[in-house]
């Protein structure tokens, strides 16, 4: 309702010129004007948003687990004794033990590192590719757009699992670190298209805006227009897509590991544990439920965080 917005968004301020020389409506005169910035306003908004705090808490918790898992789990996740197979909670093992007799909770805590690393790095690489491709295609249009859009279509047409199986086969015998980065590489290579499309369409929308024409009339070059006028207005949707993508990359890593083509033991990851837990679900469901819950909560936390940040950075919603 634009009518309404006009009135509501108004702060009464003296329009001194052309108004019969008299001051206009007395507004909040005398109140000192605080310097405001977009980030500052966004922060003030976020501070009052409980969804932001809950999701941030979860993200920080998972990140802390990834960095210093020892703080959260008392037991060594690799200290497995078969005699404790499916034993109930005891000592530090609050969720008991799995089929191998390892501490279920400790394994979930230690699994955060691999999952988060895969998610964050894939999202970062994806973001860079998507911004560059989307920006070029959307801003320049014409044949640049035609070529890049076809590339996006082609990559989008590749089935993720099939391509991952083919590509990761080559590193199936390599070391842990190589495998980890191979997974990141594969996910980013196949996962940037959605974000690129989002960036492209928001760049196209921004490019047609009058304020871009206004900048051009002032003599601004392509670089300035892209950097100052288009990027900030195209970033918000990209951030949301990337935060959600981060969640889904974590889930994808788990899927690949679950299928046995991603990470492998002795690396600890939620996907590996979910796979192991599934096999012995009938004997004890806890070793399946715990890593699954960690995975679901982490993915959810990132999605909620992305949503909250998007809302805060959109001045029109305020």
């Amino acid at each position, binding site marked *: 309702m634009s009518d309404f917005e006009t*009135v509501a968004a108004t702060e009464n301020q003296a329009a001194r010129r052309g*108004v019969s020389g008299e001051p206009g*409506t007395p507004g909040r005169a005398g109140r000192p004007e605080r310097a405001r910035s977009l980030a500052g306003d966004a922060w003030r908004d976020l501070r009052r948003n409980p969804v932001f705090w809950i999701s941030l808490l979860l993200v920080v918790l998972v990140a802390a687990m990834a960095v210093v898992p020892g703080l959260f789990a008392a037991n060594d996740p690799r200290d497995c004794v078969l005699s404790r197979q499916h034993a109930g909670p005891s000592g530090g093992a609050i969720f008991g033990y799995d089929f191998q007799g390892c501490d279920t909770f400790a394994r979930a805590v230690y699994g955060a590192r691999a999952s988060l690393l895969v998610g964050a790095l894939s999202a970062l690489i994806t973001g860079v590719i998507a911004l560059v491709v989307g920006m070029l295609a959307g801003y320049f249009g014409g044949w640049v757009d035609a070529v890049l859009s076809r590339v996006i279509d082609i990559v989008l047409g590749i089935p993720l699992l099939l391509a991952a199986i083919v590509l990761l086969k080559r590193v199936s015998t390599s070391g842990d670190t190589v495998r980890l980065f191979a997974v990141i590489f594969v996910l980013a290579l196949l996962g940037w298209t959605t974000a690129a499309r989002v960036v492209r369409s928001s760049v196209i929308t921004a490019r047609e805006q009058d304020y871009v024409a206004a900048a051009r009339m002032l003599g601004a070059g392509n670089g300035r227009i892209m950097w100052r006028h288009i990027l900030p207005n195209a970033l918000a949707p990209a951030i949301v897509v990337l935060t959600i993508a981060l969640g889904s990359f974590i889930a994808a890593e788990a899927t690949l590991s679950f299928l046995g083509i991603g990470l492998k033991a002795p690396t600890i990851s939620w996907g590996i544990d979910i796979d192991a837990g599934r096999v012995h679900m009938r004997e004890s469901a806890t070793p399946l439920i715990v890593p699954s819950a960690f995975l679901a909560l982490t993915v959810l936390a990132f999605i909620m965080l992305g949503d909250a940040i998007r809302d805060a950075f959109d001045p029109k919603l305020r």
Partner: protein
Amino acid sequence: MTQSSARPTPASPTPPGGHLLEVRDLHVEFRTREGVARVINGVTYHLDAGETLAVLGESGSGKSVTAQAIMGILDTPPAYVRGGQILYQGRDLLTRPEEERRQIRGTEIAMIFQDALSALNPVFPVGWQIGESLRERAGMSRADARRRTTELMDLVRIPAAAKRLGDYPHQFSGGMRQRVMIAMALALDPKVLIADEPTTALDVTVQAQIMDLLADLRRDLGTALILITHDLGVVAGVADRIAVMYAGRIVEHADVRALYRAPAHPYTKGLLESIPRLDVRGQELSSIRGLPPNLMAIPSGCPFHPRCPYVQQVCVDEVPHDLVLGDGRTSACHFAQEVHDDSAG
């Protein structure tokens, strides 16, 4: 264009059986994330058979929201009716069940909008869209509906109507689309037609055609018309009475000639003086200072007082009641007589 001499004045006695349509002390608020906006604050007006009432106001004045309340098409949330009555032939629409209101929409009261392109469905032919209510609600056969649709399109002067039944909205020009909208609104022969800024999106030459059409339809069919607009020029040509809205209230209500001759509310006076006239080349335009009010913090007393050249302490303290002036018109201003005399002199 001369008006009939039997034109009712604002103070015209209530006809036997009451007014055709009457809005009484309507209050509507919008509840939003930022707070509660009081959009309609006690609007009262009426409409009798066959007359044209103009509701004039700027954006945010509540002129369209009142019409949406009459039609029962307010979005709740955020809009909530907080009080008042909307009487159609003596029945209070606000207390009626949705089913009954739906019956009244179209058959008794119909509405046309500013943006005809978005009000029409792009994937159906216009003939089909005009005929829809004839088939669905009047229960006509396909052939009858088709015949009646052609008649309606002739009535709104769409050339070669029979040939254009199968055309899609994008194949029509802006003016022709507005005619299609009017034909749709008239399909079930309503007694009241509400036109919300019907010509705002159109060019002047086309605007004149549409306003002529509306005036002729009123004369030939006897449809009463509520014309909602921000354009003082459009009102001057067709309306009998005019209600001027500001901050969700009616600030002045008068016979259209009397109002243009000598406005009795400072807001109306300011508006009339601030628009450039085609027939008079003036020097600097006198403008209304300041900005329309924030509906979440409407000024105390008279809502217009921060912008008013006549402002006194009483305006800040007391909400002005409708002052009835000699010729049966009303003005919600503490100094209505003074303003009126200033404008007349």
